[in-house]
């Protein structure tokens, strides 16, 4: 397959799925479900960024919630000082990218376990700063009365919100799929698979890592800006380590580096429980247990199960094409 075919193959199914979800939400959602649809869209964006970074870089980022929080707070503060809401996404992306750049540069030479710990620490630092810089963030009480895109979500504007967030999901999907199938993505995976080999052909590992962290952070910053302009209210607790853990968990459950898997897993593990009004307690329990079980038996997540199911079905029903899962696209983290 050439590059553009691979791009379409990774973009189209996931984008189609997103379009279907958005359409279903537009057609059938009541006010509550519209809210769920919006928040699930935010989750998908966050998870896509994580999945892209972890999958192509082979390193864990544990501070998506921090980047998300920075995007949210900065765009909220700017809007409270008069910036029009439609600029927020650009601001969110910029803030995310800048903070990602800073973190990436600080951690240029750090990898593996160490990078996971450093990013975890950075995520917690962001949360602490949101709490402690009271003069700016208003501390634990949070920011109230942040402008929103279309006012409080209601029957009149729910379609607008859904279109905005799922539109953003599809744009993010497109950008990440492009990146993944570009030379950049190719080099990233070369580094992931063998640092020594990549270094010997002259790839600068640190530079690629910084770029990837920046991309993931920009995506999270966008999610933050979108969230701000829907919620109108921000508290530091929204951006805790727990959220980073959930984002990582959702990405892993979907299958690292599988965009379709990221969407499905966000729907299954975040959207559906909220739809069913499962309490946060059960949602957390399900997350934990499913993550443990999945890591034992199918560490490549839903995408591995999907590939397996398809090959099983082929073998059983048609008696052909019983292939191994494609090791190039689904890979154990």
């Amino acid at each position: 397959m050439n590059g553009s075919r691979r791009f379409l193959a990774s973009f189209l199914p996931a984008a189609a799925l997103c379009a279907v979800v958005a359409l279903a939400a537009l057609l059938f959602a009541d006010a509550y479900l519209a809210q769920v649809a919006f928040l699930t869209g935010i989750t998908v964006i966050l998870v896509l960024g994580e999945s892209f970074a972890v999958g192509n870089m082979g390193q864990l980022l544990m501070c998506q919630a921090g980047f998300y929080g920075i995007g949210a707070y900065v765009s909220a503060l700017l809007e409270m000082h008069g910036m029009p809401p439609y600029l927020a996404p650009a601001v969110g992306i910029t803030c995310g990218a800048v903070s990602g750049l800073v973190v990436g540069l600080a951690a240029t030479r750090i990898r593996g376990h160490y990078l996971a710990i450093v990013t975890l620490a950075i995520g917690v630092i962001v949360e602490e700063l949101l709490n402690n810089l009271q003069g700016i963030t208003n501390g634990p009480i949070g920011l109230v009365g942040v402008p929103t895109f279309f006012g409080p979500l209601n029957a009149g504007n729910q379609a607008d919100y859904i279109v905005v967030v799922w539109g953003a999901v599809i744009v993010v999907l497109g950008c990440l799929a492009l990146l993944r199938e570009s030379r950049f993505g190719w080099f990233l995976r070369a580094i992931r698979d063998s640092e020594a080999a990549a270094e010997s052909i002259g790839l600068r590992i640190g530079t690629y890592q910084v770029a990837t962290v920046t991309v993931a952070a920009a995506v999270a910053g966008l999610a933050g800006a979108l969230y701000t302009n829907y919620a109108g209210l921000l508290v530091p607790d929204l951006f805790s380590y727990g959220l980073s853990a959930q984002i990582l968990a959702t990405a892993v459950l979907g299958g690292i580096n599988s965009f379709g898997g990221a969407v499905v897993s966000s729907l299954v593990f975040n959207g559906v429980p909220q739809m069913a009004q499962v309490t946060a307690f059960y949602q957390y329990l399900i997350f934990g247990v499913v993550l443990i079980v999945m890591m034992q038996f199918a560490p490549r997540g839903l995408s591995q199960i999907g590939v397996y199911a398809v090959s099983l079905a082929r073998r059983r029903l048609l008696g052909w094409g019983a292939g191994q899962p494609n090791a190039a696209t689904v890979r154990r983290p």
Partner: protein
Amino acid sequence: MLAFLSSLFINGLVTGSMFMLVALGVTLFYGVLRIINLAHGDVFMVGAYMAFYAGTYLHLPYWAVVIVTMMGCAVLYPILDLLVFRRLRGSELGPLITSVGLSMALESLVQGIFTANAQAVPSPYLNNLVNIGTVSVPLQSLLMIPLTLVVVAALYVFLRRTRTGLMVRAVAMEPRVSQLMGVRPEYVYGVVFVLAGLLVGLAAATMAPELYVTPTMGVELTVDAYIVVVIGGFGNVEGAIVAAFILGLINSFVSGLGLADWATTIALALLVGFMMVRPSGLVAERLGVRQ
């Protein structure tokens, strides 16, 4: 002023003792199994609930609460290992990811059983104030220091003077070669999980009376433990001991300056700084972690 400083100092030692007991487990996990376990603080939390249950519902005397909690954690950890980590031996990031799931599962399970309400663990020594010079400290806190010293000495003797301890160190250095000497790595891993359980159980039983026990208390402690381990050097037992007390004192003095809110931020900044500048930690590597 002197009284104030010395109370801060004692406070720092007490906090440092707790950090040390928790961080030793984390550093042993890394040194011997090469895993990052982000659920360690949650095992502390489960231990604290064991202490709560034993003290409040079973009405055990305090010394029995301590023993029950230590034993409970020492049994719990190998079971968790069997269920959660064992299948992922040799994977670098797999155990880390699973430990995130384990942390979530433990938190919500405990919340399911005990609710999210803060609980208090009874102890007879809590209201027993001891005067040291001009400072008065609860006996409960002071208890921590000698207990910790005893435990560290015991750990040291175990690692340095027993054959099993020798095996632990050998597996940490050269797991494949140790196998050639007839050491079964799984046996050593089991020993490490039991040790980590005993240490964290002691920390939980002795600190729980001074803290409010909640299902989410573990996360913060996990983070503290990793700060200690980064400063002390991953897998480095001596380093963890030194770093725990440094962090305890920093925490105490920062709070003493009226900056309690900033203590975590400062400590975390220290972690990031260490990782950038000196990822091998303060003290030269001892347990044989290969970079």
